[in-house]
């Protein structure tokens, strides 16, 4: 016996249920949009994510100034948060490239210390900027 798709999914009297479901789904979509859209807009990030060896180990609140100690394979990397920005204060690595990265504060920026496997990342999309310019 062939039945219509409507009847297979919603049974006899399906049109009414279909309307009810549509109403609920419209409400849900509206709720999701209302919750998600204003938050998705960019701006200055509120936190920095810290990873060691690819694993998230800490989330730093950028509104709270202070120094955190992150333990990597070489030793302790000290990370400073001040005024919504973050930098590497000291690092046990030989070349200190992470420390020379200075302060970062915009979405999408990151500091990386390869020897100590520490990555500090500011979540979000980089707004209309380019990675680098080669001359």
């Amino acid at each position: 016996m062939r039945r219509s798709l409507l009847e297979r999914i919603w049974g006899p009297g399906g049109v009414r249920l279909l309307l009810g479901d549509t109403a609920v789904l419209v409400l849900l979509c509206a709720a999701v949009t209302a919750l998600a859209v204003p938050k998705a807009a960019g701006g200055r990030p509120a936190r920095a994510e810290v990873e060691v060896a690819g694993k998230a180990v800490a989330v730093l609140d950028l509104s709270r100034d202070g120094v955190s100690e992150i333990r990597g394979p070489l030793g302790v990397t000290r990370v400073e948060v001040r005024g919504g920005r973050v930098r590497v204060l000291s690092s046990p690595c030989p070349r200190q490239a992470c420390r020379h990265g200075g302060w970062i504060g915009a979405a999408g920026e990151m500091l990386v210390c390869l020897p100590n496997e520490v990555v500090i990342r500011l979540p979000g999309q980089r707004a209309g900027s380019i990675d680098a310019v080669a001359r």
Partner: protein
Amino acid sequence: MNTRRVSFLGVLVALALALHLLEAQIPSPLPWVRPGLANLMTLIALLTCGWQAGLLVMLLRVVTGALLLGGFLSPAFALSLAGGLASTLVMALMARGAWRLWSPLAMSAAGAVAHGGAQVLTLVLLLVRTGDLPWLLPWVLVPSLVSGIVTGVLANLVLLRWQWYFRGVA
């Protein structure tokens, strides 16, 4: 609770657990995005045997799933439990209007969104402790809604086709 019901709920828990374990094997770029098919069994229990049965099936599935996969009482378990409780609560409240105002499809979709929302809320409260997780919210809620609708269509198909069977159990 009669024998027939007990064995029926046992089968639902077993199926839910199997789906839960199977879904955990699917690699995903967004690790929290799961099809949520296990929720189908919670929904069926809820509609055929009442909200207590739905709660039971969900709790047994989440606990045994965590025991088998590892991570019982871990943060991931807390997320899973919070999501399960929220979605079961929403679906139980909506069960009153099932097949009258809306079909289980809408219940599944609303439950899935509650699941995602509760997980983000738990994550913020328990783990991150920074008032907001703005960038994460759309990445959780939108896939939740989609998977909830897919699971809901399946729920409707199963519930209608097996109507004669569920009526005998309930």
